[in-house]
Every structure is written in C-alpha cells, then in structure tokens.
C-alpha cells in the first residue's frame, strides 16, 4: 500500500490540517484520515516563526496521523520537504516527491537542497511528467525503496495526483462540517 501525507491550509487561511491517504497500488483509497485544523494565534505565529509549519506538520499532524492509521503503507509520500522529519519517529520509508523541474519554495525548505539525496524517475509510458524523489538525510536508503516501488506503478499511477484528491476531500469536509473549517 501507498501512503500520502500532506499538510493543507484551511480555506480561511487561518489554520492547517494534516491528512493522510492510504491507497492500494491502483490508487484505490483504503483509509483516509485528517486532523481537525490547528489554528495558531497571531501571537503564536511570530513566536514559532519559520518553524510553525514544520512543527504543526510533523509533531502535531504527521506523527499522530501515522500512528492512527490501521493500514500501514510500504511507502509514504509527502508533498512538503519538512514533512520528511516524520521519518525520525516512524519506521516506514518516507519520500518527498515533486515534479522534476518544479520551482522550490525556499521558505518551506529547511535544508539546502544540495545537501539532500535526490533522484529523478521517469514514467516509462510518458503519460506523466518525471518526478524528483528526496529522502531524509538520515535515511538515505528510503530513496532506494521508493525507486523500486514507484518504478512499478509510475507507468499507470501518478503519485502526485492523490494529493489533489486529498485537497478536494478537505474542501468538501470543510463545507459539510464546521469542525474542519
């Protein structure tokens, strides 16, 4: 199974929700969890500074979410580099994926990218744009695991696409229930 971990801003841009989606290798959802929004106050925001999003994403959302899922995936993909830090706590390989050549948000990148181990993989069918995989600096073997798994599925499944589903699901949850707004 594949895991997708993401941190989204709320619609009102005043908080953050962590989400995890577990799918099978066809992309069919097996489990979906999301946190209630964490809404830092205007005082907390400057006090946490640049560490606000990583702290919320990893400590408050990522790790609890991973601990709560019932179906343990063989690989977890994250959409933000700082979420790689969940790897320090969990035993499952974690990889940061993005489209090759995509601009990087330096603000959210807490490490100089040159220090990280990166690898590019291409879609054999040409159906999807190539991806760049990045692993946590302390767990360089993760990139090998990710390459093996994604090499098998990338011809028919775009690993970036599930993050869009998660974003839409969060939007609908917010419309249906105030606790997710």
């Amino acid at each position, binding site marked *: 199974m594949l895991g997708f971990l993401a941190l989204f801003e709320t619609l009102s841009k005043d908080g953050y929700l*962590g989400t995890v989606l577990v799918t099978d290798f066809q992309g069919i959802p*097996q489990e979906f969890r999301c*946190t*209630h929004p*964490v809404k*830092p106050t205007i005082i907390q925001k400057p006090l946490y500074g640049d560490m606000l999003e990583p702290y919320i994403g990893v400590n*408050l959302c990522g790790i609890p979410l991973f601990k709560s899922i019932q179906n343990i995936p063989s690989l977890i993909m994250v959409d933000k580099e700082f979420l790689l830090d969940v790897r320090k706590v969990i035993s499952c390989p974690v990889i940061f994926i993005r489209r090759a050549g995509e601009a990087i948000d330096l603000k959210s990148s807490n490490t100089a990218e040159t220090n990280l181990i990166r690898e590019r993989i291409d879609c054999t069918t040409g159906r999807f744009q190539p991806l760049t995989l990045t692993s946590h600096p302390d767990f360089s073997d993760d990139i090998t695991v990710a390459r093996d798994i994604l090499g098998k599925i990338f011809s028919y499944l775009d690993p970036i696409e599930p993050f869009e589903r998660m974003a839409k699901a969060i939007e609908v949850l917010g419309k249906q229930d105030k606790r997710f707004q």
Partner: protein
Amino acid sequence: MLLNSLKFFERTKLNLVSKIFPVRQTEKLFLDQIEIDLRETQINQIGIPSISIPTVTKDFCPLTPEFVDLQAVPSYTRIITCQNSQCLQKLRLTIDEQCIGKQLNIRCPTCRYSFIYNLSRDELIEDFTEWLKKQFCYPEIESFPVQLDRPRTPGKSYRQGVEKYKQASLFGEHEVDNKCIHGLKKSWCTICIQKEKQERERTSKVDLFDLVFPILQPPLGENFDSPIAFPSGFELYPFQRLGIKFLVDHERALLADEMGLGKSIQAIVAIRFLIRMGRITNGLILCPKSVLTDWEKKLWAWAPELIIVKVRGPKEQRQICWNSGANIYLTTYETLRQDLSNSIGNSDSEDVVKKDFDIIVLDEIQKIKNPSTDITKATRQINSPRRWGLSGTPLENRLEELISIFAYLKPGLLHYDNASHPSTVKKAIKPYFLRRRKTDVLDDLPAKNCDEVWLELTSAQREAYDRAEKEGIISLNEESDSVTVQHVLALITRLKQICNLEPVSNESCKLEYLIEQLDGISEENAKALIFSQYPEKTLRNIEPGLKQFSPSVYHGALSDSQRDKIVDEFQNKDTCKVLLMSVKAGGLGLTLTRANYVFHFDLWWNPAVAAQAEDRAHRIGQKKTVYVTSLFTVNTIEERIQNLLNRKRELFASVIDDLSDVNLSKALTEDELFSLFNLQKGKRSDSKSSSKKISSELLNEILPQQFEELISVLYEKMGFHVKLTPQTRDKGVDIYAKRVSESGTELLAIQCKHYPKGTVGVEHARALYGVIHDQPNITKGVLITSGIFSKDCREFVKGKRIELFDYSYVCGLMEKYNIPFS
C-alpha cells in the same frame, strides 16, 4: 510768587488767558484697603494614586482596545477649622457637586463638636484624584500560551474488516442500564436521555468520511477509458459518452434522447463524474413512482461508491431520510410535493426545504409541463445551480409545455409569448438541448415493427356501441348551449370502453384476437406487454380471459414493493408470459426487455405516451425484433380518433426530432373534438359575444351574490359542472366545481370574497384550508376576490392545495372566456 516776578503785561496776559481757559485742578484718588488686598489664590491639586502590582489575566488572548470617552468629574475639597475654640482642628472636607450651596452639618472627629458650615463654590478646590484613580488603570501583563494543542485525527478505514461479535448478555447490560452516572435510573435522568438522543442522532447520520469516499477515488479520465472506471460488464456506447460530456459541460440541460437510449445511465455517470471531480457533493433525483426502484438499481450498478438515500415511506421515515447525509437523494415528484408542503412553517425540522443541492435531475421532466400544477410549483421551489431534465417526450402537445420545462431549467430563456414562434424556441433551446434517435445511434438495436390491426365489433359490442353513441349525441345536442369539451370526452371514454369490451356480455373482438396471438407467442417462449388506459374497466375484465398465460396486472394502485415484484417476476420467471399494464403507471422508465411483443389494447390521445410504453421493450438490452400491434375497431370512434392522432404524430416528429417550423399552439382543438360527433360548438357563445366585457369598474359595482354567480358562470365556461351552496351556512364554500377528464376527476371548492378595492387577509385562506384539509376528494381550494390578497395570505397558501385569484386575474379569465357582464 511766581506771578509777582513777571512783568505786568505778562501777568495781565496770563490772568486773561487763565480767565478764558482756566486750568483744571487734578483729582486726588484714595485706594481702599479692599482694593489693595490681593485675592486669595485658587489651588488645584491632584493626588497620585499608588501603582498596583501587575497581574496575569486568565484570558491569554489580547483584547481589542476599548475606547472610552472620558468626562472629567472632579470632587471638591476644602480645609476648614473646627469651630470649637478649644479644638481648632484643621479638617479636610471632601464634597460632591450636589452639596455645594447647602448647609453641612459637620462633626469634628477629634472633639466630637458639631457645627453648621455653609460653603460656596468659590471656597472649593477642584480635586481630580479620585476620578483619575477610576479612569486610568495601569496595563495588565498578558500571557500567551506558546504550546499549540494537538488536534484530533478523525478518519476512516475503507477496507472491510470483520466485525467483532459481541455476546449478548441476559443480565449484565440490563443492570448497567438501570444505573446512571448521576445516581438516578437512566429512564429518569433527563441529562442521560438527552445524551442518548444526541448519540442516536449522531450515529443515524452517514459518516462524513463515507461522503468524501467518491472524491478520494482515482479520476475517471475525460473519456471514461480508465480500466477502473466502471464495474466489469458495464460499458458505455459512444453516443452515451457524448451525452455525458454534454451534461457535464452544461449546468442547465435537457437530455431528450429517444426512449431506451439510457438517459438515466448517462445522468448517473455524469453525476458520478462530477462528484469524483469534487465539483459537486450532493444531488437530488426526482422521478415518477414507477421508475424509482429502477433508478435505485441503476445507481447501485453504475455508481456503487455513491451513498444513495431513497426518500420514501411514512412522514417520519422520510424526515430521517432527508436528515441523513448522502451523495444522492432519490424520490418522486409527489413525495417532494408532500414534504415541501409539510415542512413549511416547521422551523425545527432539518429537511428538504433547508437542503442545498448541488444538482437536481428531473427524470420525465414533462411532469412539470403544466405550470399551474402543485408538482410543478413544488419542484420550482428547489433551487440548485445545476439542473438537468431527462425526457424522451419533452413536447407532448403544445409548445407551452416545453416553455414551462425551460422556465425551471433555464429561467428567463423562453417566454410564453414565444409559443407562437417555434423557430425562436428552437434557436433558444439549442445550446441546452440534446436529442438522439435510436435509428441514428443504435445500429445494433433490433428493429421495431409497428402494425395496426382493425377488427369488427362483435354483435353484442356493436349493439351496445350504437346505442351508447346515439344516446350520447342526442344528449349533447339537447344541451347544445352548455355542452363542453368534457361532455364530449366523457362520451368518447364510454364508447372506447365498449370497443374494448362489452361490459354485460364480456364480449370483446380485441380479446379474441389477443388470445389467438398469445397462443403463438407463448409457444415460441416469448412474452408480451398489453397496454390499456383503463386499468379497472378493461385490464381487470380481460385478465380472467388470459388466465392460461398467467398474467400480472401492473397499475397505479400498487405499492412500490408490489410493482418491483411484478417487474422482477416478468423479467426473470418463464411462467409469467403476459403483463397487463396501465399505460399511465407502466409507460414510463421501466425496463421490460424480456418482452418483444407489445399490444396496445386501446390508445391514449397522445402518441408520445404510446411510444413511451412501447419502448419499455424496445430499448438497450433487447435482443429480438419488437412487434408492436395496435388494436382498433372499424366504424367506431377509434377510427375517427386515429385520424386526429396521425396528425399529432406528424407534429411531434417535426418539432422535436427536426425542430422545424410548425405552429404548435393548438394541436387538438375543441372544434376537432366536436367534429368527431358532427357537433358544432359555435352557437354556444357567439350569440353573446357582443355583450359588454367585464371590466374592473363594473366588477366593483355588483353585489356579493352576483359576484358568486359570475364566478360560477366562469367555471361553467371553463368546462366544470358547478353547484352554488346556500347563501347562509355554506360551510366555508360558495361553489363546488367538478370536471371529469381522461386524466381523472377534478373537484374544486371555491370561496368568493367580494371586496372591491379591498384586501383579503390570511384568515380566509386558513378557513378554506380548514374545509379542504380533511377532504381528500377535493382536488384543491380556490379563493377568489374582487380585491387583492394580503402578503400573509399569499405566503400561507404556498405548498397547500389552494389557489388565489385576485381581481386582475378574474378580469383576465372573464375576458378570455368571453363572459358577458349582465
């Protein structure tokens, strides 16, 4: 002395000048002691209040600064001396504004000597110390929590797990139930009862994570070519993919494919596509009662991941259905009308009125072709950004029907003035309209062979028929002045029923022919559908004659489950060879592809209804050639009607299929109906046509009783039989009006309020509602006034079986029906 030293001349000159201009002596001024003394200074003083120790507030959030308009309110002080000469203690006197100018009784705290002291404002010293203490506070130090709270992590595993089996207990749970954490029996504790209720409500609602499940599915792809798009065995025809794309691309659309091309499947897949794209979350599907189960099955088959709630059953059950979360709510037009009517004024309920649907799909949208029906009015109350209509026959008779349909689908697109300009209508609806015919898109669909069989009436039928026709025509001629279309229709119905079956002898040339045909059909292991518009007078009577073919009868009075059972047995069991169907109840939406023989025992006025019925068998899934046989009797009313029907069939084909220019305003005129019996309608109204037309001024001058009589004449002209109630003790109804048509009996309870230039209040509508509420035989109540209706009154009747006619509407009807004012 000085003068003496001067010369004489000088002295004389000086004396002279001094006489003429004497020198004025200077004044001497003396200052009084009071004027010399300096006035005592006034002293203003401010005491500095002590600084309090800063405190930490419990509320960690910084407050929005509060701006206060300060108004300086000083107190006054004065140092006085005790008037006891033995004491002479200096006393500090602090007083308020109100005490100034009053006598103060002061008691010296040292010597206890009391004395009276009068003080004036001048003696006082303004002192702002106390005021400052009140107004200016030193800031409190705020403390903010640095630690962010860890959020909850709700979610759902969609993998099917094994539910833990819980062993039932005979005693244990019972004992626990009796104890409440508040020390009371659970059944006595209101807190526990409330908690349990909330828990029940919570658990009865659908899990939010089930609602988002479709959104979490992989995308279907633009061309529906994903290997996981549909369950195995489900494929779409290319024309259906185009139809789905048309629906997805259009928020307002009318899909008018010919019957049997899978309109409902196209709509389901399009909804599924939109939900999985996250563009919509929920929707409402309205359909006729007969196809409710069919829709449900198709939804399960084509969109298994969606949560479907079928809103049916008793009122309480429907309420629960509306309250539960779902992707799709499925119900009938009639149920929606009832629930909208029930929920008005019920602010506590959280039902259909308060629901926002992202999409509404109206199956067989011709149900709302008549803007004045309750179903149309109820449907129009449902607002939704996306509105799709499905119908194989959106135009049954007149162009106004299509205009009424688009009045909901795309308000403002068409106007009733356009009814006389078909080309304008065609051009306007084109972007929102898609229609395909089987001949165009389904090359592999078996052929449909239509045939007409003309039979001779049996002797008993002929005798009964001739007698009934003769009596009917005589009766119509006798009442030539008051005869209406309804009278003609009633005679036609009587004659058509005799053509089907002679009720006394039970002889029927059609039944004899049918039995012969069914013998052959049964031998080749085929099945047949037999349609009639008279379930009671025809289907029930021919059923015993077809006993050898184990017929089932499908009609409108059956419950949902009975209908489903009949359809299921016909499709799946070999023993059931024949299905007798009411064309109204079974003509829409059903899939009965097991049959490939269709017999029309009699034909409805409208060829579109017959075509709908035939297509229950001739649709996707049919493997054999479909044989449609219409049974007619020669030298009867059926033969004459058939000529009219042929004309209507041409009209339908030209406007909907080819969208050509045809004036559709009157497909079936009164003259045509009267001509069936060689009757002329002209003399009924022509003699009076020159009479003075009603006008609002004249309406104001008549008496209340005359107003009632005028309304009764109007309803007679509209084709009703009217009955005026007594002037006193009329039990809240002035006129009863009854009209019999092919679609049933219409009974109106009319209350007239003659208030020229006045306003009719809600109490009159309430009174009428009270009268009709418990009388289901009354189709609706009509409140008519020569004045206007109050806003409350208009609000009250919404969703109820009451119509309001104000003076302008009445005048319009008078003119339309050419009512003479006399």
